[in-house]
């Protein structure tokens, strides 16, 4: 975060607000074992914005406060989102842009699928692998069906206008 300017801070704050808004408004499908958290589509943003991982972390932290799944979800859920955000950020460093874009939504799917399932299976007493499948499927729907088209669109717009970066 060293050397971040006002623009990075503003972007992170707004990304956090958008993540939290989408999660809270769509709360019935954003929490629990059977979830499709639409806001996770924003998890591809670190590919384009360097401050996005922190924004996603803050947004997830705020949203999870409302979730009803406790301190584990607030702390570990947000940290997993932060880690996934930085892995997505590193996907942008891959030489092949197309490969990088295809891989960009993968870290949130894997980290949330396997990570969130640890405490959610403990809380609900459900089998770990059952929860991994459910969370993983929801994440895949959000990140690949919504996130990837968003990433493709934004990247093309950025290349055309060069107003963001």
């Amino acid at each position, binding site marked *: *975060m*060293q050397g*971040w*300017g*006002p*623009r990075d*801070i*503003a*972007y*992170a*704050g*707004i*990304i*956090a*607000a*958008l993540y*939290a*808004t*989408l999660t*809270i*408004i769509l*709360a*019935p499908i954003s*929490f*629990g*074992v*059977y979830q*499709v958290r*639409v806001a996770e*589509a*924003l998890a591809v943003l670190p590919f384009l914005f360097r401050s996005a991982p*922190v*924004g996603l972390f*803050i*947004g997830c*932290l*705020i949203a999870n*406060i*409302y*979730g*009803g*799944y*406790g*301190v*584990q979800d607030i702390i570990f859920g947000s940290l997993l989102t932060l880690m996934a955000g930085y892995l997505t950020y590193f996907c942008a460093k891959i030489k092949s842009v197309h490969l990088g874009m295809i891989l960009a939504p993968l870290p949130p799917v894997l980290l949330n699928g396997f990570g969130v399932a640890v405490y959610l299976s*403990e*809380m*609900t*007493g*459900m*089998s770990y692998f059952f929860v991994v499948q459910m969370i993983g499927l929801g994440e895949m*729907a959000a990140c690949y*069906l*919504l996130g990837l*088209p*968003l990433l493709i669109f*934004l990247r093309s*717009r950025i290349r055309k206008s060069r*107003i*963001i970066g």
Partner: protein
Amino acid sequence: MTNRLIIGQYRPLDSFGHRLDPRAKILCAIFLMIISIFTTSYIFYSFLIVGLGLMLILSDITVRTILKNSRPFLILVLITALYHLLFSARDTHTIGELFGYKLTEGGLAMAVAFSLRMLVFVGIAFFVSLTTMPADMAETLVGWLKPLQRIGIPINDIGLMVFIAMRFIPVLAEELDTIKKAQIVRGVNFSGGLKNRARKMTVLLIPVFQAAIRRADDLAVAIESRGYVSGSERSSLRIYKFRRADWLFLIIAIISATIIFLLTMEEPWLK
């Protein structure tokens, strides 16, 4: 969309629960959630649920608000209970049948215990989120992260990001609503199957994100023009002070939960 009741949304009231220091409430929540993991005692969970119910009543939260907020969670509790009834502890004593499916004593015990545990977690989250301003919660968390400043993490910048996020949640919620209505007017149909809804979500997500980026650019100019220096020391509008009531609340909650935990540890039905 924005007029709908948002789950766990802060209720601005003046009650015992609202007046408590946010740090006391969050510390208590952390303790109760951690201790709840180390037991499956239905007596322990029942005590916590009664205690949380009392706290919510003392905080002027009506039963209607609780029921309205808890609907999605009750569905999950039901699914959790069904899952355990049908799939858990299959090798224990059979007690009956449900739609031709064998019900076991162990399965029923796990269904009760884990459903109650879920209710405890939801109750704790409700008590904290309905009685604590989001900004207070964020400030508490940022305050606890202050020691990380020593290893070079700019906590004050993170604090600013948190406050931007808090400030813009209602603004973006309104914008999302406006854009959704505008897309409906243009003929976009958001109803239908899951696949259709997911596909149409991109029609909503992209303009919302573009609008958010425009706001971020304006905000960056505003931050810069006010001479914000990253990493510099910032002061807080609110100064929290632990009062006697906060200490009493915290100590009574922790001691009573610990005593009930210890007394119900050897409960024979559910160990």
